[in-house]
């Protein structure tokens, strides 16, 4: 034991800051490059790409509570849908059609939904927590269905016509503006979340995930911290919902569904929990794969998607990004 200690080479306290700053700049550059590539490769499919970006915000939002805090949820679409309906209702019923204002309203709607559902879900632990989250999304869904005067009920909320961005870029039929807007939003949110996850608060959340008892023994409030993260995650999901409302110009009950909640959790697991990159990679691969397979084989595509998921969970339990990272580390370790 002692021998092991003595052989441990004294590592100088490295200045980790420039390191992660560089990594983040590379990350943003990669996201932008992929976005530009998508624009030129699939010019007729920008609506799908925009939808992917909106869902990516939802998956990032789940990652905040599940990946970083260890809270299990199958009801996170409640936050996404709340943002979508808040922005949609503001546009249709109150005449607020400025896209930036709609995003802000969506963020607030998501935050309120995050506060409400967080207050309920965080009462439970483990399986009970999961069941509570499912109950919450069903309640939100039912509430939206019943309040049809505002939400349009099962017909959906149509007639959302956002103003042109800066009065210049209208939301056209091709979806170019919506796509550009979505990319910009995602990059901004991504950068802010990178800062958030590295902040003292992000560190505290990681601590809670690893050992809540230790966090309490340090004098920090576990419940308060988790609720705060739930509200932040609501803001992110709400932005995603509002973005979806702006780009599709309609909000349906499916945006508040259990199916969407479960699918986005699957996307997160596919990409790798606890990493923002994992959330993005999971969303893009799942949705692209789903689109590709459903076009290639409209009868058995769900089977193929299911088989892929089983393969990932069995052979790459840390998700695509997590496993790639692990392989890279081993490769580097072997190279030394």
């Amino acid at each position, binding site marked *: *034991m*002692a021998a*092991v*200690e003595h052989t*441990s*080479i*004294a*590592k100088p*306290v*490295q*200045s*980790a*800051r420039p390191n992660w700053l560089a990594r983040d700049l590379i990350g943003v550059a990669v996201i932008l490059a992929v976005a530009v590539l998508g624009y030129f490769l699939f010019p007729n499919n920008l609506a799908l790409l925009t939808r992917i970006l909106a869902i990516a915000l939802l998956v990032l939002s789940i990652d905040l509570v599940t990946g970083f805090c260890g809270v299990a949820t199958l009801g996170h679409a409640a936050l996404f849908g709340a943002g979508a309906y808040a922005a949609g209702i503001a546009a249709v019923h109150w005449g607020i059609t400025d896209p930036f204002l709609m995003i802000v309203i969506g963020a607030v709607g998501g935050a309120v939904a995050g506060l409400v559902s967080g207050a309920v879900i965080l009462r439970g632990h483990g399986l009970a927590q999961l069941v509570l989250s499912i109950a919450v999304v069903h309640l939100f869904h039912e509430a939206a269905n019943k309040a049809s005067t505002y939400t349009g009920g099962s017909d959906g909320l149509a007639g959302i016509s956002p103003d042109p961005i800066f009065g210049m870029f209208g939301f056209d039929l091709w979806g170019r503006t919506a796509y550009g807007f979505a990319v910009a939003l995602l990059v901004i949110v991504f950068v802010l979340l990178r*800062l*958030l996850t*590295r*902040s*003292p*608060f*992000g*560190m*505290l959340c*990681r*601590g809670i995930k*690893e*050992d809540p*008892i*230790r966090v*309490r*023994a*340090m*004098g*920090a*409030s576990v419940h308060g*911290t988790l609720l*705060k993260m739930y509200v*932040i995650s609501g803001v992110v999901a709400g932005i995603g919902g509002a973005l979806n409302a702006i780009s599709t110009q309609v909000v349906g009950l499916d945006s508040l569904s259990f199916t969407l909640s479960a699918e986005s959790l699957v996307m997160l697991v596919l990409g790798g929990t606890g990493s923002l990159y994992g959330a993005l990679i999971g969303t893009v691969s799942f949705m692209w794969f789903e689109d590709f397979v459903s076009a290639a084989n409209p009868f058995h595509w769900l089977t193929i998607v299911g088989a892929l998921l089983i393969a990932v969970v069995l052979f790459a339990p840390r998700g695509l990004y997590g496993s790639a990272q692990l392989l890279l580390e081993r490769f580097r370790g072997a190279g030394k």
Partner: protein
Amino acid sequence: MSAVFQVQNLKKAFGGLAVTQDVSITLNPGDRVALIGPNGAGKTTFVNLVTGHLVPDSGKVILAGNDVTSLGPTPRVRQGLVRSFQVTRLFPDMTPEEHLALAVLQRTGRSGTIFGHYQAKPDVMAEVAELLHTLGLDHIATRRVSEIAYGQQRLLEIALALALKPKVLLLDEPAAGVPQSDTPRIEAALAGLPSDLAVLMIEHDMDLVFRFAKRVIVLAAGAIIFDGSPADVTKDARVREAYLGSYANDRSAA
């Protein structure tokens, strides 16, 4: 010198079983007290009552003049009552530096800040560096805790408690599970604890108790049966009876 920590007539029963019977302890700043007792003496219950994990049936816990009996564990920590754990409770994926930074940020009310990195806060980094140095953990500051030796993890537990600048420190078997070769380092760390800090150590290892404590309290069947100097504890008939049981009692009576 006024008492920094007082436990007054603490009582707790589970059903009909009284596990803590009228326990009173007073600690002054700088005290080094060991709490010992045979298995089942009620040490764990006592710690849980003091830290706020259990609610006493009656009695008071007073910390720096404030009655904290009705407070939960977390507010008690904020008021300066800090504990270490018998089995280390650390964050396996975080580094010692991150642990200590988080504790310093928590103590100074900044652990909820959503922007900024702890490495960009010079006061935090200075304090962390000092703590790492005091406990000899500098060279593993940026390693993951899951990769460092158990003895170092125990030292980090102590550093973590100190980072919270406690008034009263409860050490729950600080050397438990540490290989023999590492115990001197733990003892050195204990000897170097701040001189104004009141320390209550729960410990089984009598050698450590005798080297560390200036005062020994013996708990048996939920009650204090001895409170005095380490030199007297082994001579005390009731303590011997508690440890050796009725066998010794019978022999001495005979």
